[in-house]
C-alpha cells in the first residue's frame, strides 16, 4: 500500500487550516461549463418574451432618450460639444456592463445555492460566465452605439473617427475585472449579511450619478473632480470618449490609478470569495 501524502489527487481540509489558492487550471478544465452557462443565459432569458433580443437595444435607447431630454435639453448640462445621444449612450452602455457584472456576480451564492448544494465545480465559474454573457450583451449594445456614431460621422463634422477606436477592446477588460472584483467581494459578504444586497443595489445606482455619464469630467474641477476620479469607472468612461471622439479628460495617471484600484479590488474580491465558497452553503 502506498500512502504517501504526495500521490493523493485531492485533499479536503478545514477552511482555517489552509488557504488553497484559486487554481486557475481547475477553472480552465471547466471552460466548457462557462461557455454553456453563457449560452444558457443568452438563449433562455428572452424565451417566451414578445420582443426577445430587442430588449438588448431597447434599454439603452430609452435611457439615452430620457437622458437627452432631461439632462441635455431641460437641465442643459454640457456634453463637451458632442451630439447628445452619442455622448450619453457611450456612458450608459459602459456603465450598464459594469453594473450588471457587479450586481449579477454579487448574487452568485444566493442565485446558485440550489446547484451549489448538490454539485461541486469551481464556484468562480459562475462570475466568470456572468462576465462573458454580459460581454456579449455589451457587444450588441456597442454595435448599436456605433450605428448612432456612424450616423453623426456622416451627417455632422463633430466627430472624426481615428485609429484609436481599435483600442476600445482593451478598455473592456478592466471594466469586466472591476465589476467582477466588486461583485465577488459583495458575494462573499452577503453570505452572512444579507442587508448588503440592498445596500449594493442602491449604491451602484447612486454611483452612476457621480461618474461622468450625464456630464463630462471637464465640467468639474478641483477636489470634486478628484472625488469623482476615485470611482475607477470615471477614468475609463472618459478614456472611452477620448478614443471615440478625441474629446475628454485623459491623463495617464487617471487611467493608471483606475487600473491599480481594479487590481486591488479584484485581489481582495478573489480572496474573500475563495474563503466564503468553502462553507457558505451552511449559512445561505
Amino acid at each position: 500500500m502506498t500512502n504517501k501524502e504526495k500521490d493523493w489527487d485531492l485533499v479536503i481540509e478545514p477552511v482555517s487550516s489552509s488557504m488553497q489558492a484559486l487554481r486557475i487550471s481547475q477553472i480552465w478544465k471547466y471552460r466548457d461549463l462557462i461557455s454553456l452557462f453563457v449560452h444558457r443565459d443568452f438563449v433562455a432569458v428572452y424565451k417566451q418574451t414578445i420582443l426577445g433580443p430587442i430588449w438588448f437595444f431597447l434599454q439603452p435607447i430609452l435611457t439615452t432618450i430620457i437622458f437627452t431630454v432631461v439632462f441635455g435639453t431641460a437641465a442643459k448640462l454640457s456634453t463637451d460639444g458632442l451630439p447628445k445621444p452619442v455622448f450619453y449612450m457611450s456612458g450608459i452602455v459602459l456603465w450598464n456592463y459594469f453594473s450588471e457584472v457587479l450586481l449579477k456576480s454579487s448574487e452568485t451564492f444566493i442565485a446558485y445555492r440550489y446547484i451549489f448544494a448538490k454539485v461541486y465545480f469551481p464556484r468562480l465559474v459562475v462570475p466568470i460566465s456572468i462576465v462573458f454573457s454580459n460581454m456579449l450583451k455589451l457587444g450588441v449594445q456597442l454595435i448599436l452605439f456605433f450605428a448612432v456614431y456612424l450616423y453623426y460621422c456622416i451627417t455632422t463634422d463633430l466627430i472624426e473617427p481615428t485609429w484609436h477606436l481599435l483600442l476600445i477592446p482593451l478598455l473592456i477588460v478592466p471594466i469586466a475585472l472591476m465589476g467582477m472584483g466588486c461583485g465577488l467581494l459583495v458575494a462573499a459578504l452577503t453570505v452572512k449579511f444579507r442587508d448588503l444586497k440592498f445596500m449594493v443595489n442602491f449604491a451602484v445606482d447612486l454611483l452612476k450619478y457621480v461618474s461622468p455619464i450625464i456630464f463630462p469630467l471637464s465640467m468639474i474641477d478641483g477636489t470634486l473632480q478628484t472625488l469623482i476620479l476615485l470611482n475607477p469607472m470615471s477614468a475609463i468612461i472618459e478614456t472611452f470618449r477620448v478614443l471615440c471622439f478625441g474629446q475628454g479628460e485623459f491623463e495617464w495617471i487617471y487611467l493608471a490609478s483606475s487600473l491599480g484600484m481594479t487590481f486591488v479590488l479584484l485581489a481582495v474580491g478573489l480572496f474573500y470569495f475563495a474563503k466564503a465558497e468553502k462553507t457558505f452553503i451552511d449559512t445561505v
Partner: protein
Amino acid sequence: MSKIVLSVEAVSKQYRLGQTGTGMLMHDVNRWVHRIRGKEDPYKKLSVVNDRTKVSDSKYVWAIRDISFDVSQGEVLAIIGKNGSGKSTLLKILSRITSPTEGVVKMRGRLGSLLEVGTGMHPELTGKENIFLNGAILGMTKTEISRKFDDIVDFSGCARYIDTPVKRYSSGMIVRMGFAVAAFLEPEILIIDEVLAVGDAEFQLKAIDKMKQVAETEGRTVLFVSHNMTAVQSLCTRGILLNNGALTYTGSAEDCVKEYGDANYHEVRESAVAVRPDVIKTGRIEVSDFWFENREGERKFIFMSGDSIQMKLNYKSSLDELPFLSVSFALHDANGSPLAELWNFSVEGAEKVYPPSGTITCSINSLPLNAGRYYINITIRHRNQMDYLLKHAAYFDVLQSDFYGQGFMPNPKFGQFLLEQNWSTT
C-alpha cells in the same frame, strides 16, 4: 490488498442551530478575537452530540464527529443510518460542497457525486441543450458528452423529445434524463445519494442494473447512501453505519444492514401511526400503535425471506365490547399494487367479540416474500361501518435469504412471492 483511493481521517462538522441573525455577528467577533490571540475557537467546545430528540442549551452541534474510514479501489461502500445520523453531511464534505470543521479527506482520481439528478437543468432549454449543461455541471467536457450523447439519449428513452424544451417534459422524463447523464459520468470515485428513490419501478431496476455494471465490470469505486436495504444488499460489498453523527459499525454490507435493523430505529416509527395526519377515522376506534415483531418479540422493520413476522396493533374503543370487528392488513408493494389481504374474518370468522382495548396480532410463520419493500394499509370496520383507514401505515423491508435451502433464489424482478413448490421428472 488493492489501493486505497479514499481516506477519511477524523472528520467532524459543526453546525450552528437556530436562527442566523444579529447574535451571529457577536459570535464572529468573539471567534476572531480568540483567533488573533492564538486561542482555540471558543464555540468548538460548546457543541453537543447530535441527538435531535433531546433539548440542549448549546447552540452548536456536531453533525458528524470524528469519522474515519478508508475505501479501496473497486469497493462499493454503503453508508447507512437513520434520518439525521449525518449521512448527508458526510456526503457534502466528500463531494466538496462544504468543508469539514476538523479532519482531512484524501482521495485519488476524479470524484463525481450524484446527490440529485438533473441539477441545473433549465426549463427553457431543449433536452439536448440540457444534457450538455447538466453534463458540464457534473464535470464532463463537451467532447466527452458529444461522444456519449447517443448512449445517453438511448438510456433515457427520451429520443423523441430531445429538441423540445424541458418544461414540456413530465417529471419522470426529467428524472430519466438526469440519471442518464449521470450514468455516463465516468469518475474513478462515484458518490450516489438515494437517487434510486425516484422514477418508476422499471426505471429503478434499470438504474440499479447500471450501477451494478459500473461497480462490477468497470471496477470503479462507489459510495452509496440509501434507505433501501434491498438495494444496499444487492449492490454493496461493504458498509458503514452512522448513528447520531458517529460511526458505529463497519463491516460487510449484510452485517451492516442487520446491525442497522437491530438499532433502535423503530423509536421514530412507533408513534407514527398515532400522529399521522392522513388517517380517516370516526373516532370510535383509535389505533395508538402498529409495529412488526420477529419470533423473539423484538420490534423489527427488516426481515429475511422465510422469517416469522408478527404484525401488532394497539387499539382502544369508546364502546364496551366489539362484536363483528373486521381488521384487515392489506399488503402492497412499493408501487402500490395490492399483493395480499390479511383479514381476521377469513381466519377467525365474524363471531368473535373483541374487548374495548387491546393488542391484535397477526402472525405469519414463514414470510413467503422475496427481497423488496412492503407496505401495510390498515382498515378496521365495526358492524360493517368503516371506522379506521390508514394507507401506508407502515412498511418493512425483506432481504433475500436462502429460502429454499439450495443457495439459489428467484429474481425479485419476476415476482415477489416465494411459493412452496415441488418439482419432479417422470
